């Protein structure tokens, strides 16, 4: 069975290519996939015919206990035959139905085949969750098929409606499955069915939820509105999905579960009431239609109601009748849809008021239509008659339901007659249609279906034997399918229905006002529209009320929540430290006062540069606190970052206005301050509580030992970064790469991978004779922006600083330093070069792209981790290499160093990217505006 599924998958994937080669004719080879299904199922007839099952199981998701458990029994065998057989015929039909070059043909063919495969998953699945997967796949494919003409609003609407309704039902069904599976202890239906099900309230909920899924899929009230709308799909799709296959999924599920669940409280009332009501309402609506396809659609709704009621009734006789009806309906309804397609294709309309003289057009077509419609009406000796007889016989002891079914059948007979009359009658005053010839491959598929319907009637005995095993699941069966049951009540009711239906059709003229007045709720989409509209309105109101669009407002709400929730919890439960030393170092209070004053002044500052410098002061102060706390690595990094931050700020602030814009509303200012104070109090409280809340020993207590024994380094913080918690660092450097790329992409209007700015040769030569050149980029600057002192100092210190950065990198494993600090120092060296010599000097200093450095660093870091994995360790595990190099002596190399080098490169790349973007590229912007109009008025900030 898995082979069949794979075959459909392959066919679906190959479909676009085949369609490109052969156009719609590609449907012929594609039809082989469902045809293979049909053949396979036919070959399994002996195995299934006596109540046996074909089982295949493949392991899938072991952790969830989910296997691909496939199982073919009588009911699924019947469905497989229908899905395969009708599928193949519909594809053959499609080969001529669609004109060559029809838009979206490739997608249509692929989805149609994929749909057949999904349908097989649904039918074969023994595991309820797998069944759900197939179920939703059919929903999605049906969405794509209904929305085939995506340029039309009605198409999109119809597709969305079908998707919404059936997915809603599907989700409810999933919840029901889970309730059922969890209580039964298994999701395999074959296991659930053979063990007694634990009773309880859950079972009623589960049954109701599952029925919601089944009814929505089969378009039974109250979910039926989507099916008529779904007729926006091309006719072959309607014939397949909305007559033979997908809508049968709900009936199939009802039939599958009925042997076990039909006795559960709400099952029978729900199924019978919804089914019979749908049958009546759908039949009535079908009588009102003028579009032949819509007539059939409402007829389908009606018949699905009948099917659900009969298969769900839960008696052996009804089960047998239900399966026969299932077969009969697929045969005649698909045939009729295909006939409508032929008419539509040939006559150019489906409106029965415009059709005339079609009987003379094609006798075979007329014959096919008569056969199929007669089967639908239940005329002997067709299979429809056999099935209908069995249905009546199964309900003889339930007069209420029987009355409903007979009334529904009267309507069925009437709309069958209306279909034939509508399609083939001659209408006075209507110009006879001049139809085009019919291709054989469009006539053969409906003919095959109709003829099978004709043959299956007399072969009722064979059918009876094949379908019996399913009915036996519900108990001993005394009913049987037969063409001539003798003079029974059922036969009388069949005759009554035929006569009644004939009368109803004959009286269509006098009854027309009643028909027009009594509008059924099925046709109206008002219910669905109302619900969708309500949801839309609620969504807009909620969004409008909560999403005010103001960033400070959002942040304020978040922060207030932080104050209230963690702050409140802290007040309620915090273990407060009794005594806290004021300070443990006399320098501490001094630094804190500086920080506090600087922070408060920064809040009040009106000038950008002032605010930035004050904030920088708090940064340096924090670094001092780090030192006092015993964290030299942090202090080093903080000092370097603070310096780099100031440099970057200055680069941007030269362009921004000098002062902040005027302060807005006073009231919100007080609110901001209140939130700020509250947050400060909460943060301080957290510091107190967190310090006193430790219950378990530090996990970091073992870090010093680990660092030496496993990381081969003495600087515990650095070893933590590159070894013990190297994954954190890996994530962090990835963030840096993203940030660098983000900065560049915000500033560069063109690709930054192009040629970097090179110093113009002429400028070089002109100045060379003039005076000594300290920096080669220097002469490219305007005279008033050059500082010869800066150039000289830069020239003198650059290489020393670069060397120092390498020292920090290499010594970082055992002493303060490491990749971050080293990279920052190297980056600052580049900053100095840029500040002294401008953007051309930057290219001289770093003649490679920032992207290259970032990429190399990331590759090195990831590569180190991967190599450890390859040699059999865990990712990012360190190893020690002892080398003996000539001249240098013994070298102890830890592999984590390579990771650190990656970090080093990424930090350099980040700074270089920032300089290229916020430095060099902004320079270029400035020059461009200067030359264009002498610069913008706001452009008067500080400069490098």
């Amino acid at each position: 069975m898995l082979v069949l599924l794979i075959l459909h998958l392959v066919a679906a994937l190959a479909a676009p290519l085949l369609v490109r080669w052969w156009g719609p004719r590609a449907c012929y080879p594609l039809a082989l996939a469902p045809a293979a299904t049909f053949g396979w199922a036919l070959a399994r007839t002996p195995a299934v015919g006596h109540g046996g099952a074909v089982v295949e199981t493949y392991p899938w998701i072991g952790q969830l206990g989910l296997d691909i458990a496939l199982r073919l029994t009588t009911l699924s065998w019947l469905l497989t035959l229908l899905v395969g057989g009708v599928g193949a015929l519909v594809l053959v039909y499609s080969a001529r139905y669609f004109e060559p070059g029809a838009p979206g043909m490739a997608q249509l063919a692929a989805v149609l085949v994929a749909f057949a495969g999904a349908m097989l998953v649904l039918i074969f699945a023994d595991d309820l969750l797998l069944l759900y997967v197939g179920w939703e796949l059919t929903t999605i494919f049906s969405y794509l098929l209904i929305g085939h003409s995506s340029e039309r609003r009605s198409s999109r609407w119809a597709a969305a409606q079908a998707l919404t309704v059936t997915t809603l039902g599907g989700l409810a069904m999933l919840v029901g499955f889970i309730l059922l599976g969890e209580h039964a202890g298994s999701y395999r239906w074959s296991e659930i069915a053979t063990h007694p099900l634990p009773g309880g309230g859950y079972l009623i909920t589960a049954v109701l939820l599952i029925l919601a899924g089944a009814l929505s899929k089969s378009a039974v009230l109250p979910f039926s509105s989507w099916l008529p709308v779904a007729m926006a799909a091309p006719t072959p799709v309607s014939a397949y999905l909305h007559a033979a296959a997908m809508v049968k999924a709900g009936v199939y599920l009802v039939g599958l579960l009925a042997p076990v669940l039909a006795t559960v409280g709400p099952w029978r009332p729900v199924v019978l009431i919804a089914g019979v009501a749908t049958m009546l309402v759908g039949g009535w609506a079908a009588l009102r239609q003028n579009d032949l396809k819509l007539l059939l659609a409402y007829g389908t709704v009606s018949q699905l109601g009948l099917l659900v009621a009969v298969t769900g009734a839960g008696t052996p006789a009804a089960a047998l009748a239900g399966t026969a009806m299932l077969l009969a309906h697929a045969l005649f309804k698909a045939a009729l849809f295909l006939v409508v397609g032929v008419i539509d294709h040939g006559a150019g309309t489906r409106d029965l008021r415009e059709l005339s003289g079609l009987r003379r057009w094609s006798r075979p077509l007329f014959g096919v239509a008569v056969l199929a419609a007669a089967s639908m009406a239940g005329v002997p000796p067709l299979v429809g008659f056999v099935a209908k007889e069995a249905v009546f016989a199964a309900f003889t002891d339930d007069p209420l339901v029987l009355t409903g079914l007979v009334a529904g059948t009267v309507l069925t007979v009437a709309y069958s007659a209306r279909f034939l009359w509508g399609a083939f009658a001659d209408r006075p005053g209507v110009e006879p249609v001049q139809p085009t010839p019919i291709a054989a491959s469009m006539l053969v598929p409906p003919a095959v279906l109709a003829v099978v319907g004709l043959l299956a009637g007399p072969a009722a005995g064979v059918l009876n034997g094949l379908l019996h095993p399913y009915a036996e699941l519900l108990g001993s069966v005394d009913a049987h399918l037969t063409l001539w049951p003798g003079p029974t009540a059922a036969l009388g009711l069949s005759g009554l229905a035929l006569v009644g239906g004939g009368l109803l059709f004959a009286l269509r003229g006098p009854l027309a006002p009643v028909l027009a007045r009594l509008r059924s709720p099925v046709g109206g989409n008002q219910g669905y529209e109302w619900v969708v509209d309500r949801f839309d309105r609620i969504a807009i109101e909620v969004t409008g009320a909560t999403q005010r669009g103001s960033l400070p407002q959002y942040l304020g709400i978040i922060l207030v929540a932080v104050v209230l929730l963690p702050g409140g919890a802290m007040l309620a439960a915090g273990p407060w430290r009794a005594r806290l030393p004021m300070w443990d170092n006399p320098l501490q209070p001094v630094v804190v006062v500086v920080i506090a004053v600087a922070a408060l002044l920064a809040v009040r500052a009106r000038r950008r540069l002032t605010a930035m410098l004050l904030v920088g002061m708090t940064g340096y102060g924090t670094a001092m606190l780090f030192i006092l706390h015993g964290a030299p690595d942090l202090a080093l990094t903080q000092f370097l970052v603070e310096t780099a931050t100031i440099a970057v700020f200055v680069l941007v602030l030269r362009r921004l206005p000098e002062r902040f814009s005027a302060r807005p509303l006073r009231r919100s200012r007080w609110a901001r301050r209140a939130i700020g104070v509250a947050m400060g109090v909460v943060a301080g409280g957290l510091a107190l509580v967190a310090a006193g809340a430790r219950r378990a020993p530090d996990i970091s207590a073992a870090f010093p030992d680990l660092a030496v024994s496993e990381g081969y380094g003495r600087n515990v913080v650095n070893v933590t970064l590159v070894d013990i918690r190297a994954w954190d660092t890996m994530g962090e450097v990835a963030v840096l790469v993203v940030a660098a790329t983000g900065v560049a992409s915000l500033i560069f209007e063109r690709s930054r991978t192009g040629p970097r700015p090179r110093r113009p040769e002429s400028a070089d030569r002109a100045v060379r004779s003039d005076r000594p050149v300290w920096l080669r980029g220097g002469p490219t600057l305007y005279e008033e922006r050059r500082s010869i002192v800066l150039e000289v100092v830069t020239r003198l210190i650059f290489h020393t600083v670069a060397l120092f950065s390498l020292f920090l990198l290499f010594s970082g494993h055992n002493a303060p330093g490491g990749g971050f600090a080293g990279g920052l120092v190297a980056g600052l060296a580049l900053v100095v070069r840029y500040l002294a010599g401008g953007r051309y000097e930057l290219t001289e200093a770093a003649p490679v792209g920032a992207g290259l450095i970032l990429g190399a660093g990331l590759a090195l870091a990831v590569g180190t981790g991967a190599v450890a994995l390859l040699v059999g360790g865990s990712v990012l595990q360190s190893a020690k290499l002892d080398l003996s190099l000539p001249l240098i002596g013994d070298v102890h190399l830890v592999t984590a160093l390579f990771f650190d080098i990656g970090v080093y490169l990424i930090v350099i790349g980040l700074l270089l990217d920032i300089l290229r973007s916020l430095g060099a590229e902004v320079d270029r912007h400035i020059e461009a505006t200067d030359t264009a109009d002498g610069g913008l008025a706001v452009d008067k900030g500080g400069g490098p």
Partner: protein
Amino acid sequence: MTASDAGPTMVLVLAVAVLVGCGVILLLERSLTRILLGVILLGNGVNLLILLGGRSGGAPVVGTGPVDEMSDPLPQAMVLTAIVITFGLTAFLLAVAYRSWYLTGDDEVPDDLEDRQIIRRAGRNEAGAVDHGGEGPDGDPEQVDPEPARRRLRRGRGDGPR
């Protein structure tokens, strides 16, 4: 000082409170530069807060002092990455501020236009999605099936299906 009582001091808690408080006030502003400065202040405060979760002591370098008088290395490693990330964020927000200035002439964060529109629509009691609401396919003259070209020709004469 022993490892057990080496923890936060009053002044450090004060520093955390002031840095976070000032950071939040700036964060709630509308100028991107101010927001960014707020982020930096907030970052410094929170870094300090994280650091206070571990004990203070000597530098966490094995061999420079007794191991049990060493400061806690784990929060330090966390804060170290946080410092560098804050730097990356700073650069990014500065680039955003520059871009904002470049396009609009200032670095203020305006209200979200899309949100404003939704609020206006809520005020006018309008529906949302284009394909939903209003008339369904029943109101669409081209109710069904588009393919056959002949129908389109024919529609010139009659008034189509339905």
